[in-house]
């Protein structure tokens, strides 16, 4: 083991690991920061370029891009309320609120710092626990994945603001959209209206871009009066000072731990991790009332989670050859281009390659902070343009990015339709995050629910016979009931107060 590690360190001087890690990190941040360009698209664009590279250089370039894009997604989330990546959706809640209150530079600094913490934790876990943790992930059955999906959805009970029933409606909308396409078990087409473009379902990234970005453009253009301008204080990136770091340490560590937990389970992913981290950080915060109003911890937790998840998310791929997400599927393509099949055999036969990849990721983590300073100024420059120009260019950029997914005009129609839906949801005060969560988890919940029942011959007790699944389901029930009770109590208190004073948001479930 020591020889392998020393050999990997030696590769720093003899291979292109360092420049590729830095290049990948910068490219990833830039791609992640562009609305509509997901980490997987950012990586896929590089894939053809890696044909002629050394395998280790190609893998480091792709993996660093993945990690960089996870951070980059937070930049537009904070600056223009548009998540660059799915996982950055939770960062909008407090990130954009801080920016709106003139603390954009601090929000960006907190995001960068906690992303670095998440990266370090994620890559350490990747290096140290790949083999043993992959065993745990392997033991998960369809029942466990179903229960995990239900637990993820129960987060809506505490994440969404306003009435709980609106959060439920929003989640059901997401789940309903997720049923469009080919049935995961029988292969029957559902709700496709005879359109072959819908057979593979509605691409999540397109719905996200439409819900968040297009509806934001519609909302901003519909707002009367002067355009909101980015404050000068938002034109710099300010890392948190010592006191600031102490304030967000607990949230960063909670986020990192949840990122590690979700990262080892295929299907959970950075989006679930960041929402769960947000929820748990609020639960354990000394100031839960500040969440949703520009809380520093509300940025730190999801950012640490999605970056830790990105590192740990490589474990199933490197240990078993199973990609856990679109991005790791692209990385799998990087392996296959060079005739390599990731998994236990590769780990045994050529460990230097994998430890070289780990070394590259460490370099990329170190490069994150300077790379962020280099690339953020471009993003902030864009946000500081006059709003009519920014809105026009955001819409053009969104359509161009969406077109690049499948080169399809139909996809652009989907983005526009999602934008109209998002605008209507804003009008009716429906939270959008549960819709995204329902959309992300819909396939996993349905497919694993039905697979479990096929295994049990239709007996629902199978979900309680799996102990891990039973714990997940119990937690989901506790979250939901707890949230209901909290809402009921708040209403009782509100009835006892004068009407004008009862405007505080619903308390999180305890």
């Amino acid at each position, binding site marked *: 083991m020591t020889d392998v590690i020393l050999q990997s360190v030696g590769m720093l001087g003899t291979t292109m690991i360092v420049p590729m890690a830095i290049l990948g990190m910068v490219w990833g941040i830039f791609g992640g920061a562009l609305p509509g360009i997901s980490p997987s698209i950012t990586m896929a664009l590089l894939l053809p370029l890696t044909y002629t590279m050394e395998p280790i250089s190609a893998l480091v370039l792709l993996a660093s891009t993945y990690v960089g894009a996870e951070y980059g997604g937070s930049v537009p989330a904070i600056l223009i309320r548009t998540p660059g990546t799915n996982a950055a959706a939770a960062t909008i809640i407090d990130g954009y609120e801080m920016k709106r209150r003139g603390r954009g530079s601090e929000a960006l600094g907190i995001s960068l710092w906690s992303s670095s913490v998440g990266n370090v934790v994620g890559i350490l876990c990747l290096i140290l626990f790949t083999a043993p943790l992959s065993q745990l992930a392997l033991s998960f059955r369809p029942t466990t994945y179903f229960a995990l999906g239900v637990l993820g959805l129960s987060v809506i009970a505490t994440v969404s603001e306003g009435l709980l029933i609106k959060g439920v409606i929003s989640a059901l909308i997401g789940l309903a959209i997720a*049923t469009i396409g080919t049935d995961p078990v*029988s292969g029957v087409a559902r709700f496709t209206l005879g359109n072959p473009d819908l057979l593979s379902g509605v691409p999540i990234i397109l719905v996200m871009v439409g819900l968040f970005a297009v509806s934001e453009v519609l909302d901003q253009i519909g707002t009367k009066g002067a355009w909101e301008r980015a404050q000068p204080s938002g034109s710099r990136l300010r890392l948190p000072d010592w006191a600031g770091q102490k304030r967000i340490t607990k949230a960063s560590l909670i986020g990192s731990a949840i990122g590690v937990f979700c990262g080892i389970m295929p299907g959970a992913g950075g989006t679930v991790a960041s929402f769960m981290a947000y929820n748990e950080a609020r639960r354990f915060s000394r100031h839960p009332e500040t969440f949703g109003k520009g809380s520093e911890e509300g940025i730190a937790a999801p950012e640490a989670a999605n970056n830790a998840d990105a590192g740990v998310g490589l474990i199933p791929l490197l240990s078993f050859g199973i990609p856990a997400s679109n991005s790791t599927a692209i990385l799998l393509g990087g392996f296959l281009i060079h005739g390599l099949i990731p998994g236990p055999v590769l780990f045994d036969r050529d460990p230097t390659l994998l430890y070289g990849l780990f070394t590259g990721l460490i370099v990329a983590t170190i490069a994150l902070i300077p790379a962020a300073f280099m690339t953020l100024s471009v993003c902030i420059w864009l946000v500081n343009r006059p709003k009519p120009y920014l809105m*026009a260019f955001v819409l053009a950029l969104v*359509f161009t990015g969406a077109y690049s997914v499948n*080169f399809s005009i139909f996809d652009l129609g989907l983005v526009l339709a999602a934008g109209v839906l998002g605008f209507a949801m*804003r009008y009716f005060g429906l939270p959008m995050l549960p819709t995204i969560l329902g959309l992300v988890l819909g396939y996993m919940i349905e497919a694993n629910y039905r697979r479990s029942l096929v295994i049990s011959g239709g007996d629902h007790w199978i979900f309680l016979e799996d102990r891990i699944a039973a714990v997940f389901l119990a937690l989901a029930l506790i979250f939901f009931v707890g949230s209901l009770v909290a809402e009921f109590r708040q209403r009782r208190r509100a009835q006892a107060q004068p009407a004008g004073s009862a405007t505080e948001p619903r308390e999180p479930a305890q």
Partner: protein
Amino acid sequence: MNRDMALGLIVMAVAGLYIRSALAIPVSFLGDAIGAGGVPLVLGWLLALAGAGLFIHALVARRAPATVAVTDPEDEVGGAFADPRHAVLKAAGVILIAAVFLFALRPLGYVPAVALLLAALLAYQGVRLRPVQLIVAIGGALCLWALFDLGLGIDLPDGTLLPNLF
């Protein structure tokens, strides 16, 4: 009728359509006991139930003025909806411009279509279209084309009506 009551009714109507479509999903011989329409049916009924719940909640809340402040949707919606009619009309204009862009993208090609989209959106937001703004629109379209087509290798539409310049 307030917004929550209207939303409750809309959700129930959408749930009805969804349930009707779910019932029309064909049964496959390869299917399981739940079937392809099983989960959508459950979701449809839950959606209908939630819509009814919201409608009843809004109805009860309207009769109990002390709770109105907690549930008032004005507290939960964006700033654009301070004047809902203006917001909806403005948004409808943007949607129309975007829809025209989608239809024009293939025949016109990427650069002319995006330049027109940018110019139309700027004009719609009250920016006077002087030569500088037209240069921004055309230059912006060219920059995006250079970034995506030349830089990222994405094959953007060339256009079928105009001479193939890009």
